[in-house]
């Protein structure tokens, strides 16, 4: 050989050449090229030699590619043809595969859209990642509370004290009576905001100047829809709207038209008024809690830095007004923290109380995402199971292909292609399912999903990607398994069924039912907990109580005559007034101490009139209720709940007649009675210690206990009297029990979703079981025939076929139940008052999985058992 012993030709070009000539064994092409290259290098130049090498390789590569692709496309056509034939020939299996996967994908798509929406809250603001809500965390008396609301003074101090804060704006939610152009009075919720709101947020104005719109007092901006509602036209800039403002009718000038607030905003509004309409004195109390403060941090300032700085704010500004928190030698930083809550996190991590809109739940997002993945996984398992089960049927095809020269990789590609095709068909079905189910989902779970979201390129790619991945992954195992057959053995006619593959299938079925068991167990536990919550005694009678908000001055002055006239009707049992309602957040909270003691106890302060205990049918355990006959009750008497008595360290008897002092220098208050604990918050939290004081002027809510006989007419009567005594005041009634129910909206949603998903997962798992049962029956036709000929009854045969499946389901339950028990026990820890997961849940789960499974394979087993043995034995 007349050339160097080393390869010196361009590496990449040589590899391309080697790839092209891999099957050309007649000529030593690479060697010849190398030789020519080396000669050329010597006689001409390296560059010219390389050019020659590359030009030849590239020219040949193009031709080679063309040849390859033509071949591949022809094979692809063939694979598709075979795939379609297989789908057509095995309709049942194909239906199970495609339908199961379509269901999995549908769940995945719907949950995916929902999760995407939940995670998109407030991201539409350009500065979203720099906007924070100022919140406080208070650790009082071992009780933690998160306060998103605060004083109107925060904004001023934060801007004055911290250069890291670029801007700040306050949102104060108020309800106003509006008199429109036709003198109709309507009540509407609005936000009083700073004019800086448009600099921080991207809410924006359609018309008007964002810089000046809310600068002047008595100005407002509203949405086009609201303008049409109040003025009948959207050309309203410069016109005035009459609002009952601080007890007087004041004209507010419209200075702008708001853009519609996107639905995925944690603050929703249609009218904003200038907060400068209020005098500065309104906000002078640094201790009060009523409005939301948002800040825009400067570029590059992190949340951690801001929160660290807030320690200074707490120490210098808040400490003087929160002196009562400093008991038992605690420092202010141990009991009070100011947090900067990123607005993009508010929706999924809402505060328990005083949140602007009912928030979402990050746990729900996690739970449902997991469920979606699981259900898709179940559908993929069906696919793998059925494909491997049917492997024997296709063994001959595989081996024939092998004999005529198909390589393993080609065969694998064929099977993966087939499963990808099935998954694409599933995608089409699932899109149809989605179109049908999204409206139902929207209605049931009060969300706003739309199929339009799917047309976004990223969503389209994601769905296509998930579908193809699911298809390819579920085709992978069958592809590897099928291509392992030895052509000689198979074509001779003896297909050995390896034990390994049956074991794998078994494991997959068991795994499917483990998942179904967990979801079912979860569903039943949630259902039982919800039933418990709905039926548990709350310590008061929530039935047939009509609640009307009564905040205005008019309501205050007309309450007594209104009460007296209503009580004359026999359908009205009693009537009372209170500052707060069970189920609503309680604002008051104060430190109390026993006379002669320095230990301060934090108690929630609840104000109600004489009839509240009677109206809500609460039990007085010791002492007496407030009474009109005791004139002194108006000033210095209180009721305690059991929890408060326990917290203070008294017995019931000791409590009555004893005295408590609020704060430092106030006169002592006498405890006249102890009320049995009642749940004024949701059952998630324990009953907190509470003091009930007598309400001296009408505020908050009027609660009316009515008889259940003729509710419609009774409500009509109340409305009539309301309009008589409080003309122009909105009659906005609700029932106490439905208000309380609202506390558990999240759990109810979860209950519904669990029901849907457990049914779906069971259905998908049963589809797989049904397919496998029919396959087993088919494979064992001969065996069944022989057993029947030897005297086995139909029952024996059914049992023989079913026992294995029953065994699998029971094994799945053995694994699934403990996992579900642990998970659900953890979930139940969220509730202070909860059920014990008893045997009933286990029994229910096992029986439902067994019954549904039995139902899915019994038909096939019975069909096989009833068949004539003559036909069975003639088979094959």
């Amino acid at each position: 050989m007349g050339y160097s012993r080393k390869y010196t030709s361009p590496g990449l070009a040589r590899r391309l050449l080697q790839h092209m000539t891999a099957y050309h064994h007649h000529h030593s092409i690479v060697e010849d090229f190398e030789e020519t290259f080396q000669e050329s290098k010597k006689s001409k130049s390296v560059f010219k030699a390389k050019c020659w090498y590359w030009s030849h390789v590239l020219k040949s590569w193009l031709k080679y590619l063309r040849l390859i692709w033509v071949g591949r496309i022809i094979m692809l056509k063939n694979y598709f043809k075979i795939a379609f034939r297989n789908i057509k020939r095995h309709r049942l299996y194909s239906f199970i595969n495609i339908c199961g996967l379509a269901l999995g994908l549908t769940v995945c798509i719907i949950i995916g859209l929902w999760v995407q929406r939940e995670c998109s809250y407030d991201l539409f603001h350009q500065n979203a990642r720099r906007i924070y809500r100022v919140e406080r965390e208070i650790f009082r008396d071992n009780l933690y509370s998160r306060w998103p609301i605060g004083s109107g003074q925060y904004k001023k101090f934060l801007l004055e004290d911290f250069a890291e804060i670029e801007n700040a704006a306050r949102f104060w939610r108020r309800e106003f009576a509006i008199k429109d152009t036709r003198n109709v009075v309507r009540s509407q919720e609005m936000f009083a905001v700073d004019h800086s709101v448009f600099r921080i947020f991207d809410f924006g104005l359609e018309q008007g100047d964002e810089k000046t719109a809310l600068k002047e007092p008595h100005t407002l901006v509203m949405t086009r829809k609201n303008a049409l509602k109040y003025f009948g036209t959207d050309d309203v800039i410069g016109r005035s709207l009459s609002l009952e403002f601080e007890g007087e009718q004041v004209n507010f000038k419209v200075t702008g038209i708001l853009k519609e607030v996107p639905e995925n905003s944690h603050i929703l509004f249609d009218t904003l008024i200038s907060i400068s309409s209020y005098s500065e004195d309104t906000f002078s109390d640094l201790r009060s809690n009523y409005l939301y403060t948002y800040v825009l941090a400067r570029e590059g300032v992190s949340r951690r830095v801001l929160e660290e700085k807030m320690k200074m704010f707490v120490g210098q500004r808040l400490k003087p007004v929160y002196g009562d928190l400093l008991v038992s030698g605690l420092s202010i930083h141990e009991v009070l923290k100011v947090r900067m809550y990123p607005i993009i996190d508010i929706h999924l991590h809402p505060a328990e109380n005083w949140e602007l809109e009912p928030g979402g739940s990050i746990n729900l997002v996690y739970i449902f995402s997991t469920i979606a993945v699981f259900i898709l996984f179940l559908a993929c398992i069906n696919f793998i199971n059925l494909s491997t089960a049917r492997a024997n049927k296709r063994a001959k095809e595989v081996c024939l292909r092998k004999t005529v020269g198909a390589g393993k990789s080609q065969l694998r590609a064929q099977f993966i292609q087939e499963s990808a095709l099935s998954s694409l068909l599933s995608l089409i079905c699932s899109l149809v399912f989605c179109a049908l189910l999204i409206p139902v989902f929207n209605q049931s779970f009060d969300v706003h999903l739309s199929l339009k979201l799917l047309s976004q390129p990223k969503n389209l790619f994601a769905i296509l990607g998930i579908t193809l991945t699911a298809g390819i992954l579920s085709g992978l195992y069958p592809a590897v398994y099928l291509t392992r057959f030895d052509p000689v053995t198979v074509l001779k006619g003896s297909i050995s069924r390896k034990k390994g593959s049956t074991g794998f299938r078994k494991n997959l079925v068991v795994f499917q039912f483990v998942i179904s068991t967990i979801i079912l167990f979860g569903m039943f536990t949630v259902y039982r907990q919800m039933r418990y919550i709905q039926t548990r005694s709350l310590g008061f009678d929530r039935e047939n109580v009509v609640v009307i908000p009564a905040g205005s001055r008019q309501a205050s002055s007309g309450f007594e005559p209104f009460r007296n006239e209503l009580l004359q009707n026999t359908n009205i049992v009693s009537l009372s007034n209170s500052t707060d309602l069970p189920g609503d957040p309680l604002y008051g909270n104060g430190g109390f101490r026993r006379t002669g003691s320095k230990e301060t106890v934090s108690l929630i302060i609840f104000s109600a009139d004489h009839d509240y205990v009677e109206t809500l049918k609460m039990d007085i355990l010791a002492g007496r209720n407030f009474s009109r006959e005791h004139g002194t009750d108006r000033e210095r008497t209180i009721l305690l709940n059991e929890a408060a008595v326990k917290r203070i360290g008294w017995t019931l008897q000791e409590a009555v007649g004893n005295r408590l002092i609020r704060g430092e220098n106030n006169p002592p208050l006498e405890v006249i009675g102890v009320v049995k604990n009642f749940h004024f918050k949701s059952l998630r939290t324990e009953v907190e210690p509470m003091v009930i004081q007598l309400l001296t002027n009408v505020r908050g809510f009027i609660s009316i206990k009515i008889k259940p006989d003729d509710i419609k007419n009774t409500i009509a009567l109340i409305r009539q009297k309301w309009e008589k005594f409080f003309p122009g005041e909105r009659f906005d009634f609700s029932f106490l029990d439905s208000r309380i129910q609202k506390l558990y909206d999240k759990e109810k949603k979860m209950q519904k979703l669990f029901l849907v998903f457990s049914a779906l997962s069971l259905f998908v798992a049963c589809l797989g079981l049904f397919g496998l049962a029919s396959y087993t029956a088919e494979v064992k036709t001969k065996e069944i025939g022989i057993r029947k000929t030897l005297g086995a009854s139909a029952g024996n045969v059914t049992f023989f076929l079913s026992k294995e499946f029953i065994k699998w389901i029971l094994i799945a339950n053995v694994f699934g139940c403990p996992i579900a028990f642990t998970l659900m026990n953890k979930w139940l820890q969220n509730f202070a008052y909860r059920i014990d997961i008893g045997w009933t849940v286990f029994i229910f789960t096992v029986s439902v999985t067994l019954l549904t499974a039995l139902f899915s394979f019994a038909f096939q087993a019975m069909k096989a058992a009833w068949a004539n043995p003559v036909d069975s034995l003639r088979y094959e």
Partner: protein
Amino acid sequence: MAPLTLKEEIILSCLLMLEGNSSGAPLRKKVIEISRKNIVYGTLYNHLETLIRKGYVTSTKSDPRPVQGGRSQTIYRITKEGTQALGETFRMHESIRKKIEDFESGI
């Protein structure tokens, strides 16, 4: 005996000149030298395939090259039939040449 095309004739002649056997690269070089025309490997291999099919050339593998990943080279060898076919063609050319000379002297 299958007739030879001009290219096949040149390739066979070159093989003969290279002492009856050669690998692809020297053969191509010789062909270019003799015919004074470039020939790409693809064309050369095609003609060699035809010659192998006609039984005029055989191909054998040499030992692999003593480098990492080195492959064996294909050595092309002219057969007895190949030599005969080439001789036959030359004889044909010779008779044609004589005919031409006779024709030209007759004029």
